[in-house]
């Protein structure tokens, strides 16, 4: 049977279907993950009590681990910025031989399994030069190893964030500054760096947050010695391994609180564009 011919002279009106199923389906699929995150946080909160938290905070080992975490994360952040700002600027502004290779190498700490980074650091310190260095300045299984393990990963995030930051700053400004009498260094300090301040804050908070969550490299390269190389992530592992789940959850909540503070700082002061792009492959 032939289909009836459309009357070409008439306007072709159509009855649109409802958009409700689209919104409902996407809403349900999307909210699943959000619900999972919220459910985990609520479960943690319900599992622990005020006395558990106070008990955890009164333990000298846990207080040492909080102190070491705060100090090591802060030093790592400063070191990451110290390297990330110049390296990000060079990658953003200049073409040089091997730039593609350098760019790829900087992705390695981001994609490599954390345990492999720890193992690689440990093996590196078995080579003659680093073994000699370790003899002069004890690094492995000591506090500097915690900072080095955190730095190995966190710095890559700082470099990427700073590169994106500099990419978003119009290079013409520096060029005008050069014609006005600036040297390269003056143009960087007087024009570029002030414009990059939000990106620097984003890089710092990202590096700090990555350092706080670092566990695998620290466990292998620094060990998990109480009152020596124990940071918060190690504490959670150590408390779990002896069956003290209450203390593990209490310390986890401290880390969650720190992460929430860092995320809030990022949202309030940092550039969301830079923050989002730093995680892009």
């Amino acid at each position, binding site marked *: 049977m032939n289909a009836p011919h459309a009357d070409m002279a008439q306007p072709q009106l159509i009855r649109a279907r409802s958009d409700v199923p689209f919104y409902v389906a996407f809403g349900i699929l999307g909210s699943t993950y959000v619900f999972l995150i919220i459910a985990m946080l609520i479960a943690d909160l319900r599992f622990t009590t005020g006395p558990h938290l106070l008990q955890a905070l009164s333990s000298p080992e846990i207080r040492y681990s909080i102190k070491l975490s705060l100090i090591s994360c802060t030093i790592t952040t400063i070191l990451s910025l110290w390297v990330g700002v110049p390296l990000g600027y060079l990658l953003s502004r200049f073409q040089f031989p091997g730039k593609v290779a350098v760019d790829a190498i900087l992705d390695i700490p981001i994609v490599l399994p954390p345990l492999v980074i720890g193992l690689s650091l440990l093996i590196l310190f078995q080579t003659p030069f680093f073994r000699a260095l370790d003899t002069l300045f004890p690094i492995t299984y000591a506090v500097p190893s915690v900072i080095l393990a955190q730095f190995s990963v966190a710095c890559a995030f700082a470099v990427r964030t700073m590169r994106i930051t500099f990419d978003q700053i*119009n290079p*013409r*400004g520096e*060029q*005008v*500054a*050069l*014609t*006005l*009498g*600036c*040297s390269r260094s*003056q143009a960087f300090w*007087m*024009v570029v760096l*002030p*414009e990059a*301040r939000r990106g620097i804050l984003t890089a710092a908070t990202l590096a700090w947050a990555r350092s706080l969550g670092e566990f695998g490299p620290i466990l292998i390269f620094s060990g998990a010695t109480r009152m020596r190389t124990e940071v918060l992530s190690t504490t959670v592992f150590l408390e779990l391994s002896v069956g003290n789940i209450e203390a593990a959850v209490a310390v986890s909540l401290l880390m969650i609180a720190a992460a929430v503070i860092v995320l809030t700082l990022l949202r309030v002061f940092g550039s969301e564009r830079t923050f989002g792009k730093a995680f892009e492959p």
Partner: protein
Amino acid sequence: MIVVKDLSVRAGAFSLSGVTFEIPSGAYGVLMGKTGCGKTTLLEALCGLRSARGGKIEVMGRDVTHLKPAERGIGYVPQDRALFTTMTIREHLAFALVLRKWNDADIARRVGELADLLGIAHLLQRKPLGLSGGEAQRVALGRALSCRPGVLILDEPLSALDDETRQEMYALMKIVREQTHVTALHVTHSRSEAQLLGDTLLNLEGGAVVPLQRIDNSVTKPDFAASGPL
């Protein structure tokens, strides 16, 4: 005075070679050319932002071919103005003077002069965010003129402005020229703009700069509708 002799410059796969032209002292040179013909590349080479592969650039009688941008004595107004987003307008006008270690009183006097000349005295405390196109252009011009350069280079400075603002800027450019006696090289797509402002007209085509007809602005007023090909 700008003298360019047999200049070669490369930007990626694009290159210019054998570029030769001259703009006399105090003259207002206007460079025209199609989009993508290398006008900005040429300006960058003159400012020292792109190194010359051959040839010679002289500014006010000095060979600046291999000098750093800071040492050329050229004021540069880029197409997008590139104002410093974290600085106030006062800081823009004082920027080059601070680098030259002028004392505070001289800086304040010079900033005041420029602000009056360009009509931006009311903007000195502001930052660039929220400035209109015309205001931003005046600030970029003031920043470039602040240390009294011998040569001013303007890359399509009026292209993004509405008609009314552009007319105001034409008048302002003439005043700036009369008061500063600066030698200018102004890049534009607009024939009417070239006729109105320029007295040394140049066309960049096929990698070569060709002089065009010279107009005496003091005698003739251009008839835009009747103006033929330059």
